[in-house]
């Protein structure tokens, strides 16, 4: 029996949401990061971008009606907020690649100690390469947050010294949110543990991490 509990996906989403400032332009990647939309603080205006040209998305009303021409990158039905705008693909990707988005939150297979990101291809012989907009986001957003489980389904660490999966971008990740910790990636090879779930120790976290972690006195404790 362990002395700690993993965070739920909703709890991780809440932690990420807490760190997104008022007025930020944000792109939430397909999959787990999409959950963040439901946890954004009500007192902040956070403007969600979708690669298909929507700036100013919100969740669609429960039960509809749904507009087939208002969807997100995951092809889910969405709504528009007052102040929303629509563009075509060239301009939408200029937002992503040109450093105009304050934050993007992406899922990941692996993140390296230098901030390399692997999230688009497992490299398995049978896998079909499919990158979407991930490489553009990784290359261009002001801050790249990763949201993922700390270890994979087989228990193997996803934070590694060097990625073994094909890269999405080199040295792009700024911060990692897992079900166990929040880790800053300054890009100098350190992985600075900013927060951990209650009951977990740095050596305990290190065992589940395949790159050396750096502790700080001010490490925050998260109640799971």
């Amino acid at each position, binding site marked *: 029996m362990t002395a700690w509990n993993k965070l739920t996906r909703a709890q991780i989403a809440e932690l990420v949401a807490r760190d997104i400032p008022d007025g930020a332009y944000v792109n939430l990647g397909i999959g787990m990061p999409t959950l963040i939309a439901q946890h954004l603080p009500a007192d902040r205006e956070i403007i969600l971008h979708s690669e298909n040209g929507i700036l100013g998305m919100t969740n669609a009303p429960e039960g509809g009606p749904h507009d087939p021409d208002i969807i997100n990158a*995951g092809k889910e039905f969405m709504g528009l907020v007052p102040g929303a705008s629509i563009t075509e693909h060239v301009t939408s990707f200029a937002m992503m*690649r040109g450093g105009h988005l304050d934050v993007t939150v992406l899922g990941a297979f692996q993140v390296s100690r230098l901030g390399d990101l692997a999230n688009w291809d497992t490299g398995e012989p049978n896998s079909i390469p499919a990158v979407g907009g991930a490489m553009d986001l990784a290359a261009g957003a002001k801050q790249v947050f990763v949201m993922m489980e700390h270890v994979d389904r087989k228990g193997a660490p996803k934070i590694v010294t060097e990625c073994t999966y094909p890269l999405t971008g080199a040295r792009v990740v700024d911060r990692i949110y897992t079900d166990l910790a929040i880790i800053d990636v300054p890009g100098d090879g350190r992985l600075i543990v900013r927060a951990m779930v209650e009951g977990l120790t740095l050596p305990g976290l290190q065992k589940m991490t395949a790159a050396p972690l750096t502790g700080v006195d001010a490490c925050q404790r998260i109640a799971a």
Partner: protein
Amino acid sequence: MLDKTVPSLAEAVSGVCDGATLMIGGFGGSGIPTDLIRALLDQGATNLTIVNNNAGNGPLGLSELIAAGRVRKVICSYARSANPKNPSSAVFAEWYRAGRIELECVPQGTMADRMHAAGAGLGPFFTPTSYGTPLAEGKETRVIDGVGYVLEHPLPGDFAFVKATQADRWGNLVYRYAQRNFGPVMCMAAKIAVAQVQEIVPLGALPPEHVMTPGIFVQRVVECRNPQ
């Protein structure tokens, strides 16, 4: 008199030759010119190179074209299903794994800008996207002020099929919400851009400032009031 309207889907897709590069608009279910694609099934062109964000969303349209053996190669950013509730690209996956269809996987923004370069008469351009990744392998690279870039080449099309909401007889197009996506850039990049629209309106009915694809980029318009 300049009249780009054509009376039938068959006429709208006429002239697509075997071996042509065909750009198909749409992202998710929005903006897919399914009726034009199905008309192309009847038209018979084969050995096609298709440029689309995906490799067939759902069973209709592009998936049918692939299943009919008419597609030699797909250039796309995402040849898998992003939505587990609505699995797509199933036909493509089968053909790809059987080695019967080629795939060029291109980052989505690079794809858009390669078409923009073609449509704007520009040559190749350097982009930071994909630098240091397998998608940059074999490509010319350059480091400028500490940032790595990959040289990407213009992507022109012989035809583009797009879906819009309104058009006039000069080919000016207006799209609904995110239906716009790849429509404008594909119309620019293709020699012959064909738009299926919900409604053809009289010349002058579209406010000049609200036209999203100017008619100069559109060669044919067909009205399709009950799209598939």
